[in-house]
C-alpha cells in the first residue's frame, strides 16, 4: 500500500475548477516530482495535500488513514512537512530558533508556560544538527531575515526537516537559486532521497529528472502524463510542450 493515496481530488474556487480528478499514489521512500506550467494547479494540489485547502471532492489517505479535510496543523502532526515557494520563515527568530519551533518535541511542549524555552539545551542541540545537515552549521545565531537568499532557501528546508517528517513536500525549492545553489540543494535532496518520502514541485527540469523516481505532469488541473523520467521523455505530450527540452 502506498504511503500517500490521493483519489479523485476536485478543487473549485467559485465557478473555476482548479483541480480535476487528481489521483496519485506515492509509495514510501519514493521521490515524486510534480511539474507543469504556471497556474496549472501544482501549488493548489500541495495546499490540498497539506490541509491548507479543502477539496470539494475526493479523498486523501496517509498510510491508510483518511485525512481528507483535516486542518493543516493536524496533517503536519501526522508527519507531513512542507516548504514554501514564497519563503515563509519566522524572520525575527534566529535560524536555530526557526528549526527549534518545528521540532516535534518542542511542539509537544507548546502549552508549557512554566519553563524557559532556552533552558532545554536538548532542543538547541537537535536544531543545530538539522542546520548542519543543510549546510547552515555556522549560521545558527543569525536572524532569518539577515541570512542570504540561498541560506534562507536552505533554512526553508531545514525547518521542514526538523519536523522529522515521513513526507516532505517541497514547493519549488530551487526557485531563485543560482547554479551553485541548485547543485548544493541537489546534493542535499540526493542524501535525503530514500530516507523519507518526497513530493516536489519543480521547474528546474535538470534537477527533477536527475532526482525523481517518478514525475507527474499537471496541466489545466489534470494529470496529463506520469512515469519515470526516461519514460516521460518519450511521452508525446511532454515532447510537444517545451517541458522536456532540458531533459
Amino acid at each position: 500500500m502506498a504511503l500517500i493515496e490521493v483519489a479523485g481530488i476536485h478543487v473549485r474556487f467559485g465557478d473555476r475548477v482548479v483541480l480535476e480528478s487528481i489521483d496519485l499514489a506515492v509509495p514510501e521512500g519514493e521521490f515524486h516530482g510534480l511539474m507543469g506550467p504556471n497556474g496549472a494547479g501544482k501549488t493548489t494540489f500541495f495546499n490540498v495535500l497539506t490541509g491548507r485547502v479543502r477539496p470539494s471532492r475526493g479523498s486523501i489517505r496517509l498510510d491508510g488513514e483518511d485525512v481528507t479535510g483535516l486542518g493543516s496543523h493536524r496533517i503536519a502532526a501526522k508527519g507531513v512537512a512542507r516548504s514554501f515557494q514564497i519563503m515563509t520563515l519566522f524572520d525575527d527568530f534566529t535560524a536555530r530558533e526557526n528549526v527549534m519551533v518545528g521540532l516535534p518535541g518542542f511542539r509537544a511542549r507548546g502549552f508549557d508556560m512554566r519553563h524557559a524555552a532556552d533552558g532545554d539545551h536538548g532542543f538547541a542541540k537537535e536544531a543545530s544538527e538539522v542546520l548542519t545537515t543543510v549546510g547552515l552549521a555556522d549560521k545558527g545565531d543569525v536572524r532569518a531575515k539577515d541570512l542570504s537568499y540561498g541560506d534562507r532557501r536552505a533554512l526553508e528546508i531545514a525547518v521542514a526537516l526538523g519536523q522529522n517528517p515521513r513526507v516532505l513536500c517541497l514547493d519549488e525549492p530551487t526557485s531563485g537559486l543560482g547554479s551553485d545553489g541548485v547543485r548544493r540543494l541537489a546534493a542535499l535532496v540526493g542524501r535525503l532521497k530514500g530516507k523519507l518520502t518526497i513530493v516536489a514541485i519543480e521547474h528546474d527540469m535538470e534537477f527533477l529528472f536527475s532526482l525523481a523516481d517518478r514525475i507527474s505532469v499537471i496541466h489545466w488541473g489534470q494529470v496529463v502524463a506520469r512515469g519515470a523520467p526516461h519514460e516521460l521523455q518519450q511521452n508525446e505530450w511532454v515532447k510537444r510542450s517545451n517541458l522536456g527540452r532540458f531533459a
Partner: protein
Amino acid sequence: MIPTQKSDSERLITPTMLVLFLVLATVPLWIARVGLYPYLGIEILIWSLYALAFNLVLGTAGLPSFGHGAYFGIGAYAFGLCQFNIVANLWICLAAAFVIAGLAGALVALFISHRRGIYYAFMTIAFGQIFWTLAIKSHKVTGGEDGLLKIARLPADLGFASFDLAGNVAFYYFVLIVFALAVIALWRLVHSPYGRVIAAIKQSETRAAHLGYNVWLYKASIFTLSAAVSGFAGGLFAMAQLAAFPDVMSLHQSGYVVMMTLVGGGLVSFWGPVVGVFLFLIARDVIGALTNAWMLYFGLLFMAVVLFRPEGVAGAITAAWQNRSLHSMRQQGGSALRLLFGGERWR
C-alpha cells in the same frame, strides 16, 4: 554556538527586575518630597500590570486589540460585586476579577481568533463597546454611570496574620508585591515554549500551522490570558479607587493603554509597557498641572513615535544599554507595526 552562560530569558528573576522592584520599594519614602503623591505610585503599578497584560496580545502575539479596557473594567466590577454579593474576602474577590474577565475574554476570543490585522482590531473595538454599553445601561448591577461605589480595600488575610490595606502606603506595598509576582510570571510566560510559539504565530501563522500548531487555539488562549490578567489589574484598580466606573471601559480609555504600550516600546521590549505607563501618568500629572491640553502634547508624542520611532522609549534604552543597534530595534518595531496595522506582511 550554544550559550553556556544563563541568559536573562532563562532566569526566573532578572537583574533588571531586582533593580526595578528595589527602586519601587523606596517610592513611598520620597514621592511626596518631589511634589507627587503616594496614590500616583499605586496607579502606576496597576496600570503597568494592565499594560503588561495588554502587551501579551499587542506585542507578543502581534494582535491589535483596541477594546481591552472592557476586561480591565469587568475585573473592577467583578471585584466589587463579589465583595457585595458573595464574600468580602480579598483573595476570592481578586480571583473573581481574574476569572470573570478571563471568561469574557474567552467568549470574545471565540469570535475573533480566526482573524488578524485590521479585522481583528475592529472586532475587538465592537466587543469592547458592547461591554461598555452593558456596564452603563445595567444600572441595577453596575450603578450605571454613577459607578459601583463603596468598594472596600479588604484586608490581606494570610491566615497567620492580617494586614490592613486601607492606607495608601500599605496598599502601595501590597500592590507592589502582587505586581512583582505578576511580572515574574509574565516574564516566564513570554520566554516559555508557549511564549515562543505565540511569537512564531505572530511572524507567520501559515508556517506555524504547517509545523503542527493549532493557531486558532493559541491565539484564543493568549487573548483569554491577557483579558484575565487585565481583569486582575482591574480588581486592584477598584480597590485603589474604592469604586468601579464604566469610563475605563470606553474606547478612548482603551486607547490609553495602546498609547502607553506603543510609546513605551512594547513592540520590541518586555518593559516597554511599564516605561509607557510611567511616562503617561507622570506627563498627565506634571504637564496636566500646567495646561489642560496635556493630551495634545502626549498625542503628538504618540504620533511621532508611531511614525518615526516604532522602537519606542524602551527600544532606545535597550539599544544604548545592551549595545544593540538602534537600527535593528527600529526595523523590528517597524515590522511589528506593519504586522499590526497593515502593509506588505499581513494578508
